C-alpha cells in the first residue's frame, strides 16, 4: 500500500467539496480517479499535495502523515504531481525545466563556492538521466527548446517527463491526455504503462472513459466529494450508481 | 545551430560606434586654434540650483563678451565653454576631465554646487589647473589646494556680522535659526550660533529645511512657539519662508546673510519681505559708483533683469583672471601667484583681497529691504 486516505473532508464556504472520502492506492499500479465535474477530484489532489489543508481526515504516504506538511516537504517525500493547466517555465528550455525537479541539493549557494566540481559532475549525470526520460516520452531533440516554443502535445509529454525526472515512486497526473488528439493519447497511454512497468505507482484524474478503461488497474469513482464505487474497470463500467452519478440520476 | 544574423545586436553595436565617433569628432572640432584662450565653466544648469548656475553663467558671458569686444587678452579672444553639472559630483568631474584634457583649458570657473566643487578640486589641483568658483561656499574648500580660489565670502564673516548686529543694534537676546540643509546653510547657522552665544545671547531652536522645499509652515510654527527676538534665515530659496511666516502672523524681526537678496524675492514674498536686515558684500546694485552702475546697465540691457551677487562675483572672477592672463599667458603657477597677490581690487562685487588659502576678504555691509527695494543700511 503506497497511499491511504481516511475520511478526508474539506468544506469551501458551506459546500463540502470533499466529504468522508476514503481510498487506497496499491504499489506499482495505475489507479484512476473519475467522476463528474465538480466531484472534488482536483481538490483531493490539492489536499494530498498540501496545497490546501483538509478540515478532517488523514493522508498516509509510505508511513508519513502528509496533513499539515508544506508542499515542498511532501514533494521531497517522493510524491510529485502534474497540473491540469501545464505549469512549465515558459522561458526555460525543456532540459532546464526537467533539471529543476532533480537538482535540489545542487542548488545551494554555498555549494557553488565550496564544491563547484561536484556540481558540474552531478549536473552531467542529471542531464543524461533527463535525456533518457525525454527519449522515453519521445521528444529528445527538443531538449534545448524553450518550453513556450513547444506544441501543446509536446508540452504534455514534457510535463510527464518532468514528473518522471523527480524519481518519485508515486506520480499524480491531472488529466494527462486532456485536450489531446487520439494518436498522441495512445502514445501517452503506452508511456504511462511503460512507467508502471519500471516500478512507479500512478494516480490519474481523467475524463476520457475508454482511455481510463484501457489503462487502469483500479478505478475510483468520486461524486460530491465521496467515493461511491471502486474496483477494476469492467466492474465499474456497468455499476448503476456510477451511471446515475454521471447521468445525473435521482439526486438524494 | 547557426546563429542567425541577429538584427537587434547590430543596432546595439551601431549605437555604441555612433557614440564613440561623435565623441571623437567632437574632439577634432574642439581643437584649440592658436589665437584663442579657452576657459572652462561648470555650472548647475538644471535641477534645483539651476537658477544660481544660470546667474553665474550670465555674469561670465557678460564679462567675456566685453573682453573680446575690446580685443580680448593680448590680442587673443577668450572662448568660454559651459558644461552642466546638475549638482551631481560625478557629472562635474566628467565635465572637468573633458575641459582639462580635451579642451586643454587651464582655468575652470565654478562649479556652482559645493559638493561638485569638492569633487572637482582634487582633479584641478592634480592637473595644476586654476579652479575659481564665484559661488560655492563650503568651508572645506579652503584647504582644497593651492590652485583653488573663490570670490564669494564664506559663511563665517556674514554670520559674525549679523550676530553682532542682532545683539548690539537690535538688542536681541534670544534667536532661532532657519537654514537650508546644505553646506552653506549649515555653516551660516553654526557660525551665527557660535558668535551669538559668545556675545551672551541664547539660541531657542535651530530648524533646517530641505533644498527645493516649498512648505515651511511647521518649522515656522516651532519657531513661533518659542517666540525668539530675532530669526536668522540662512539659505537660498527662502522667499517662501518669509511669505509663510507673515501668513502665520509671525511678526518677529527676520535677519539673514547675503542669500536673501534674490531678484525674485519681492515677486514671491511681496511686501512681507520688507524690513529685513541682512549682510551683503559691498556689491550694491543701485550704488552710484561708476563701475557698479555701468555693470548694472550692461547686465540689464543684456538680460532684462538686475544682477545678483553671484553674477557680479562671476563677472569679477573673469576680469581678475583676464588680468592674470595678460601678465602670465596660460602659465597657471604665474596666474596662481598673481591671484594671491591681489589686494583691494575695485571689483563690481566689492573690494577684493585674497588670503593665502585662496579665500576672498571683502568688506561686508548691512542692507535692509524697504518698500520692495534692497537699500544700504550701515557698514
Amino acid at each position: 500500500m503506497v497511499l491511504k486516505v481516511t475520511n478526508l473532508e474539506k468544506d469551501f464556504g458551506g459546500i463540502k467539496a470533499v466529504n468522508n472520502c476514503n481510498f487506497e492506492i496499491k504499489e506499482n499500479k495505475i489507479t484512476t480517479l473519475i467522476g463528474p465535474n465538480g466531484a472534488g477530484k482536483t481538490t483531493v489532489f490539492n489536499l494530498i499535495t498540501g496545497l490546501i489543508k483538509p478540515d478532517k481526515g488523514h493522508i498516509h504516504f509510505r508511513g508519513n502523515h502528509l496533513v499539515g506538511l508544506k508542499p515542498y516537504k511532501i514533494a521531497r517525500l517522493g510524491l510529485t504531481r502534474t497540473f491540469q493547466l501545464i505549469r512549465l517555465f515558459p522561458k526555460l528550455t525543456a532540459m532546464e525545466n526537467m533539471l529543476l525537479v532533480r537538482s535540489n541539493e545542487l542548488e545551494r549557494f554555498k555549494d557553488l563556492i565550496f564544491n563547484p566540481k561536484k556540481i558540474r559532475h552531478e549536473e552531467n549525470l542529471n542531464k543524461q538521466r533527463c535525456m533518457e526520460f525525454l527519449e522515453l516520452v519521445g521528444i529528445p531533440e527538443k531538449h534545448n527548446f524553450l518550453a513556450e516554443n513547444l506544441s501543446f502535445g509536446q508540452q504534455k509529454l514534457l510535463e510527464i517527463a518532468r514528473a518522471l525526472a523527480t524519481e518519485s515512486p508515486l506520480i499524480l497526473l491531472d488529466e494527462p491526455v486532456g485536450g489531446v488528439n487520439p494518436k498522441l493519447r495512445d502514445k501517452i497511454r503506452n508511456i504511462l504503462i511503460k512507467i508502471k512497468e519500471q516500478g512507479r505507482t500512478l494516480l490519474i484524474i481523467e475524463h476520457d472513459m475508454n482511455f481510463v478503461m484501457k489503462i487502469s488497474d483500479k478505478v475510483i469513482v468520486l461524486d460530491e466529494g465521496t467515493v461511491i464505487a471502486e474496483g477494476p474497470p469492467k466492474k465499474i463500467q456497468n455499476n448503476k450508481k456510477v451511471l446515475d452519478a454521471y447521468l445525473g440520476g435521482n439526486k438524494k | 545551430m547557426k546563429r542567425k544574423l541577429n538584427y537587434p545586436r547590430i543596432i546595439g553595436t551601431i549605437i555604441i560606434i555612433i557614440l564613440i565617433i561623435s565623441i571623437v569628432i567632437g574632439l577634432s572640432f574642439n581643437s584649440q586654434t592658436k589665437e584663442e584662450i579657452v576657459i572652462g565653466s561648470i555650472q548647475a544648469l538644471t535641477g534645483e540650483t539651476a537658477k544660481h548656475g544660470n546667474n553665474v553663467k550670465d555674469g561670465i558671458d557678460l564679462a567675456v563678451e566685453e573682453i573680446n569686444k575690446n580685443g580680448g587678452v593680448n590680442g587673443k579672444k577668450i572662448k568660454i565653454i559651459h558644461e552642466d553639472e546638475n549638482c551631481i559630483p560625478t557629472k562635474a568631474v566628467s565635465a572637468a576631465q573633458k575641459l582639462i584634457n580635451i579642451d586643454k583649458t587651464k582655468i575652470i570657473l565654478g562649479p556652482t554646487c559645493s559638493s561638485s566643487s569638492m569633487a572637482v578640486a582634487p582633479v584641478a589641483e592634480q592637473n595644476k589647473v586654476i579652479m575659481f568658483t564665484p559661488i560655492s561656499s563650503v568651508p572645506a574648500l579652503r584647504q582644497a589646494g593651492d590652485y583653488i580660489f573663490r570670490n564669494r565670502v564664506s559663511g563665517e564673516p556674514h554670520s559674525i556680522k549679523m550676530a553682532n548686529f542682532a545683539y548690539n543694534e537690535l538688542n536681541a537676546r534670544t534667536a532661532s535659526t532657519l537654514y537650508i540643509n546644505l553646506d552653506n546653510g549649515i555653516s551660516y547657522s553654526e557660525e551665527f550660533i557660535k558668535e551669538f552665544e559668545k556675545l551672551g545671547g541664547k539660541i531657542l531652536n535651530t530648524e533646517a529645511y530641505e533644498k527645493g522645499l516649498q512648505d515651511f509652515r511647521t518649522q515656522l510654527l516651532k519657531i513661533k512657539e518659542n517666540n525668539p527676538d530675532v530669526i536668522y534665515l540662512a539659505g537660498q530659496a527662502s522667499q517662501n519662508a518669509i511669505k509663510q511666516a507673515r501668513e502665520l502672523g509671525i511678526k518677529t524681526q527676520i535677519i539673514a546673510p547675503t542669500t536673501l537678496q534674490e531678484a525674485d524675492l519681492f515677486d514671491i514674498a511681496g511686501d512681507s519681505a520688507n524690513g529685513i536686515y541682512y549682510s551683503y558684500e559691498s556689491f550694491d546694485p543701485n550704488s552710484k559708483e561708476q563701475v557698479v552702475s555701468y555693470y548694472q546697465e550692461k547686465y540689464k540691457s543684456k538680460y532684462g533683469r538686475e544682477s545678483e551677487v553671484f553674477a557680479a562675483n562671476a563677472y569679477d572672477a573673469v576680469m581678475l583672471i583676464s588680468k592674470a592672463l595678460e601678465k602670465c599667458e596660460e602659465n597657471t603657477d604665474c596666474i596662481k601667484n598673481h591671484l594671491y597677490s591681489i589686494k583691494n581690487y575695485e571689483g563690481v562685487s566689492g573690494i577684493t583681497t585674497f588670503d593665502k588659502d585662496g579665500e576672498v576678504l571683502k568688506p561686508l555691509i548691512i542692507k535692509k529691504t524697504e518698500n520692495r527695494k534692497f537699500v544700504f543700511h550701515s557698514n
Partner: protein
Amino acid sequence: MAFSQLIINGLIAGAIYALIASSFSLIFNIIKFMDLSPGAIFVTAAFSAYAFNVLFGLHFLIALILAITVAVALALLVNLIVYQPLIKRKSDSFTLLLASFGVFLIITGFILLIFGAEVRTFGLPITKGYELLGFIITKTQITLIVTSIVVFIGLQLFMKKTKLGKAMRAMADNKQVASGIGINVKKITNITFIISAALAAIAGILVGLEQNIDHNMGFLVILKGLTASVIGGIGNVPAALIGGLIIGLVENIGIWYLPSGYKDAIAFVILIIFLIFRPKGIFGVKTREETSG
C-alpha cells in the same frame, strides 16, 4: 494654539497629496499600473496657467481652463503614443511604471527648456491669513482644502451613482467582463485619463497659487500621491484622498518632533509599513467583492 495650526498645516499639505493621489489611483484603477506621469501633468498645468495668466495676461479663469485643457491633451497624447502600444503588447506593469517615469522626465525636460529654471509665481497679494479658532489660514489654502473635499465627495457620487462611474468600476474589476457587457473600453479609458489629468492640473494650479512653481516639484509630489493611494486603498479612488490627508498630517506632526529633514522619509516609512502589513490600504477592498456586493 500650536496644535491646531499643525493640523491645518497637515491638511493643507494633505489636500495637495489627496488631489494628486486621486488622479493617480483613477489611472491605476483602470489600467492597473503605477503611472508617474500625473506629476508631470501637475507641473505642466501650473506652468501653462502661469504662462496664460501672467505672460499672456489673460483673466485667471480663462488661464485656468486653458491650462486644464493643455494638461488633458498632453495626458491623452501620452496615453496614445506610449501607454496603448505597451498595453497592446501586454507588457508587465513594471515596464509601464518605467515608461511613465520616462514620460515624466521628457515633459519636465521640455518645461525646463521652455521656461528655464527660474522659480515663477502668480504674484498674488500676500496678506496675513484669517485667524479662526486658534489657527491662521489664507484664502488660497482654504480653496485648496475645500477643493479636495469637493473632489472627494464628487468622486464618491460619480463612481457610485453615474452610469460612467459604474462602467469605470466594472472595468476596474474585470476588463474582459466589462467589454463583454458592452462597455466601450477605449472610451472609458480615455475619459479616465481626462478626469485624472484634470485633477492633477487643478492640484498643480492650486499649488502654483499657494507656493510657487518650479520645474522640479512634480517628482516628490507624485511619489507622495502614490503613497497616499496605497495607504488609502489602491483599488478605491475616493479613499486615496483620505490617504493624502493622512500623509499630510503625519508628516507635519512628525517633523514637529523629528528634525524636519526627515519629512519625506516619514511618508515613505508609512508607505513601507502599509505595503508590508496592509497592502490593501485602510479602505482598500478587493474590487471583486466591491462590485459583486
